[in-house]
């Protein structure tokens, strides 16, 4: 737009939501997606081979997620304030209850699927219902709390909650594919979901861009500005497409090769990460008035890089920790022999 206006005195703020928000939304989305996939697998047979890697993936991401969430608070030591009032108008307040309920459900499931909890297997179905319900609630609140923000046009579009939720399920299936491949287990429907979901994701991105093409930022064009016009953010959308399509192809091919399915999983997670980075950091760099935020680059920001390394490190520790509880299906077959029950 050429209007001849030049800003002579303006200022930039720091980002209110930092890179921690990206890691949190990525992890909690993947955890919810993986938990739902595990739930549907357990629906038929709670000891089906694909349940264990899916639960493993959900638990690893779910247990890690609260840490970057706390880190994103500028006063993390005051987190108890969430529970000392009832701000029912705030979706974030509801989320403060949904998240621990979801994580608690995962924790109980891990115990029930561990060698220690085999004799309590009859309770699994109730915990699965609980966990699946709160996984849905977490997906709803994470998408909802951002969609209601009218001041951020890129979030306040109908496409946003759909695409955020879809990418959560895709990333969840991606983590399952990685876990299953590394543990030599069966990813089951996760791989098919990854393939179909990745293609839908790419189609959705293109549809979102097409629907807002030619519109102004406040009238449907905010995502177009992020995805196409803003550089280098525009480049990221290409990466999202590559990850999505590549993930889909590899997932189809990976049904016979564990390495390919693991690679498809990595691409799915990477695509979800890129998408979130673009939507969260890129949208915050979009000025609401003229006073805007500074651009926030992952690669040029040491805080973001160390945050990423820290989060991945924590995830790795939790993954190792989980191996003590969710033993390989060959080792933990006692439960299967005793409880071939459907939910």
């Amino acid at each position, binding site marked *: 737009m050429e209007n001849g206006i030049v*800003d002579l005195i*303006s200022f930039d703020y720091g980002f*209110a939501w930092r890179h921690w928000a990206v890691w949190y939304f990525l992890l909690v989305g993947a955890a919810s997606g993986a938990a739902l996939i595990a739930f549907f697998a357990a629906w038929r047979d709670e000891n089906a081979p694909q349940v264990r890697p899916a639960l493993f993936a959900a638990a690893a991401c779910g247990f890690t997620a609260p840490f970057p969430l706390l880190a994103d608070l500028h006063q993390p030591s005051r987190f108890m304030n969430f529970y000392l009032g009832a701000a029912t108008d705030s979706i974030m307040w509801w989320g403060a209850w949904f998240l621990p309920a979801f994580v608690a459900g995962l924790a109980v499931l891990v115990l029930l699927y561990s060698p220690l909890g085999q004799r309590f297997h009859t309770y699994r179905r109730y915990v699965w219902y609980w966990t699946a319900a709160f996984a849905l609630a977490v997906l709803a609140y994470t998408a909802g709390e951002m969609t209601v923000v009218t001041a951020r046009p890129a979030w306040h579009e109908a496409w946003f909650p759909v695409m955020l939720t879809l990418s959560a399920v895709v990333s969840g299936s991606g983590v399952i594919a990685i876990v299953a491949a590394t543990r030599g287990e069966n990813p089951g429907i996760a791989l098919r979901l990854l393939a179909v979901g990745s293609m839908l994701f790419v189609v959705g991105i293109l549809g979102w861009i097409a629907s807002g093409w030619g519109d102004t930022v406040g009238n449907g064009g905010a995502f177009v500005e992020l995805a196409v016009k803003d550089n280098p953010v525009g480049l990221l959308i290409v990466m999202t497409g590559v990850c999505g399509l590549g993930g889909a192809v590899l997932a189809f091919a990976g049904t016979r090769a564990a390495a390919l399915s693991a690679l498809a999983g990595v691409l799915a997670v990477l695509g979800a990460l890129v998408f979130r980075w673009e939507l969260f950091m890129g949208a915050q760099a979009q000025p*609401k*008035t003229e006073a805007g935020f*500074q651009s926030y680059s992952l690669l040029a920001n040491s805080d973001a890089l160390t945050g990423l390394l820290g989060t991945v490190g924590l995830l790795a520790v939790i993954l190792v920790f989980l191996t003590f509880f969710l033993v390989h299906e060959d080792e933990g077959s006692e439960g299967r022999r005793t409880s071939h029950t459907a939910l």
Partner: protein
Amino acid sequence: MKSRREILSLGAVAAFGLTASPGLAAPTKPQAPSSGYVPRWGMVIDLRRCIGCQACTVSCAMENAVPTGSHRTLVSTYEVPTEDGPGQAVLPRMCNHCENPPCIPVCPVEATYQQQNGIVVIDAEQCVGCGYCVQACPYDARFINEDTGVADKCTFCIQRVDGGLLPACVETCVGGARVFGDLKSENSHIAGMIRDHKVDVLRPHMGTRPQVYYIGLDGRLQDRVEAEFGSRQLRGLNVHEEG
């Protein structure tokens, strides 16, 4: 015959009368809340009188101990094309103390709320610094205070207003562009200004019903300003060069 003290007093009154004539400064002092009457505080900014000196920016920062690099108020300054060539436009920005503030319902810990007198405030002891209100404000009026780690914004200098003083930005405005007062009172100076002039608010389509009104607002600055280039881009260039 008048004493020296009486002559000095008359001189002071005359001088005050010159500076406090209608339109130059806000003649109505905030009413003490103890009277039982609850005003609805608001502000009119007469852009015809603003010279962009940033005295308001500085006095606000001094009064409220705003960290360096953050601003509760700031006069955005633009070069805009006019019929006579490039001209300068100024736009003081601040919290609009909206009638329908979008920052309040999103707060998960009820740390931000609106007083009966319309001032939107933040309980700094309650705020967890989640930044949700910063996202929800359509005016970029909120920020996370680097020193305190909680959300921060203009409060109309509530600590001064409750004591019967004017906000610091109003007190120091050399052009008398900022007028603070009770929007409910028909006799107030601010109500008269709104009645007698064409006033605009920023981003009216957001449905927030701002209570900071502007006289002489350039329509090109009312919503998101599509600045082509300028200081922000220059700062960006510097970042890239340094990076």
